[in-house]
């Protein structure tokens, strides 16, 4: 994962956006907990530069049309 986070850093994406969690299919409550925790973290980090660039491109294309 360190390697992948390093690669994300080279393209300007916060490596905190990627995380691996280890759990089994029987750990339902833990899965829900992880989903909530990670979602909150991502919401706090805000939109990624890729999403922002895509939105900008979409707006420019719509404006041209």
């Amino acid at each position, binding site marked *: 994962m360190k390697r992948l986070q390093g690669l994300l850093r080279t393209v300007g994406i916060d490596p905190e956006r990627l995380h691996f969690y280890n759990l089994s299919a029987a750990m339902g409550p833990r899965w829900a907990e992880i989903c909530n925790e990670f979602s909150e973290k991502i919401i706090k980090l805000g939109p990624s530069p890729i999403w922002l*660039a895509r939105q900008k491109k979409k707006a420019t294309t719509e404006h041209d049309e």
Partner: protein
Amino acid sequence: MIVGEQKPLEEIWEMVKRHKQLTVFGCNTCVAVCHQGGNKEAGILASLLRMKAVQEEVDIDIVDSGIERQCEHEFFDSVRDLMSRSEAVLSLACGIGVQFVATKYETMPVYPALNTTFLGDVIAVGHFTEKCQACGDCVLGLTGGVCPVSRCCKRLSNGPCGGSSNGKCEISKEIDCAWQLIVDRLEALGRLDDYEKIPPLKDWSKDRAGGPRSFKLEGI
């Protein structure tokens, strides 16, 4: 095998961003072993370049693919169509593969994604060291399997220099003295008398120093 290291992403991006279409092309033999240029690495690199393109608002269509080896014609049969549709190729092969692609597709720009570094082996997972310099006049039979051309910093042919200390080279404490390794190996083989033998003069004309080399099999 041939070992290479991927160039920094910025350097690669500067080379290729002028194109409207790019094929990121992996080689699944030597450079895949060192996790730098295989077909998987081509996929990863293509992904990173697409992310860069989106962020920098550069309009470029990036495709990734690869073959077993980029140094033989036969392996290119399966990608004939892809090559005919490509505007430019970013080759993750060693320098040999990059040149082979460039020669094979004369009018297509080919860029190297790797810096080819040395011929070496895998001493541990992820750890590669130089073991051969392709000198063309192999003395490994006399030196107990340790190469003084590639592993001695001075390429000495007749024993260690005065800088050999505690089995290490004077250049760096991390480099083993090749001649110490040779003596140790010959001792283990019970052939220390080979160390006393004066080898014939090395024919350096067979080395790269004698010009680019080629080899042609007769009767094929």
